[in-house]
């Protein structure tokens, strides 16, 4: 257990509405990531963060924005949700150095959020 929670765990929304997903970690890990999982694609990186207020785009970032104002929270926002953003969203954390039970540079995942956009 890497002390990662995601909220909400399930959400149904309508096309065109804004949606924010939250990832919260309790152990001050430096790197945080947002992935989406779709059938036939495995997981794909949306955005990641390498520190407070430091973020960068992943391979499928269009339509998404992120913010990290505190070490422990990484927010993913869909400004205007579309049906193509129906997916399962995973947050992950990693550390660039060995830290207790956590292996260097290894990503540990939260429980996921299932988002349905109607």
């Amino acid at each position, binding site marked *: 257990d890497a002390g990662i929670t995601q909220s909400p765990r399930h959400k149904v929304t309508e096309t065109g509405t804004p949606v924010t997903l939250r990832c919260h970690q309790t152990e001050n890990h430096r*790197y945080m*990531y947002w*992935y989406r999982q779709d059938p*036939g*694609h*495995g*997981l*794909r*990186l949306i955005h*990641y963060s*390498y520190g407070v207020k430091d973020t960068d785009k*992943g*391979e499928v970032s269009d339509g998404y924005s992120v913010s990290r104002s505190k070490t422990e929270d990484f927010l993913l926002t869909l400004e205007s949700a579309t049906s193509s953003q129906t997916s*399962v969203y*995973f947050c*992950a954390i*990693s550390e*660039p150095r060995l830290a207790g039970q956590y*292996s260097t*540079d*290894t*990503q*540990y*995942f939260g*429980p*996921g959020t*299932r988002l349905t956009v109607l």
Partner: protein
Amino acid sequence: AQTVTQSQPEMSVQEAETVTLSCTYDTSENNYYLFWYKQPPSRQMILVIRQEAYKQQNATENRFSVNFQKAAKSFSLKISDSQLGDTAMYFCAFMKHTSGSRLTFGEGTQLTVNP
């Protein structure tokens, strides 16, 4: 760009037997990590095993071991003494040996362990 290929969409094995899941990857990097993650029906992504490319010794974690062939770009997972709880989707993943790099995943292999 890196790619990861898992050529077995589904596999099944009898309880207590051994099964091997295949993974191949393509990269021009010389130093990198390879991982196997397990996703049971609960949907949680669980780390199974990790391999650093510069280490020639194959990683092992209890009943799980890998066969890492760097020249062939092959990274297979062997599960010994299969248990019903091993039923899950298994993903192979690649990551550059740079902190903060993204994981590149294969499409997964659904493993079913039969009683």
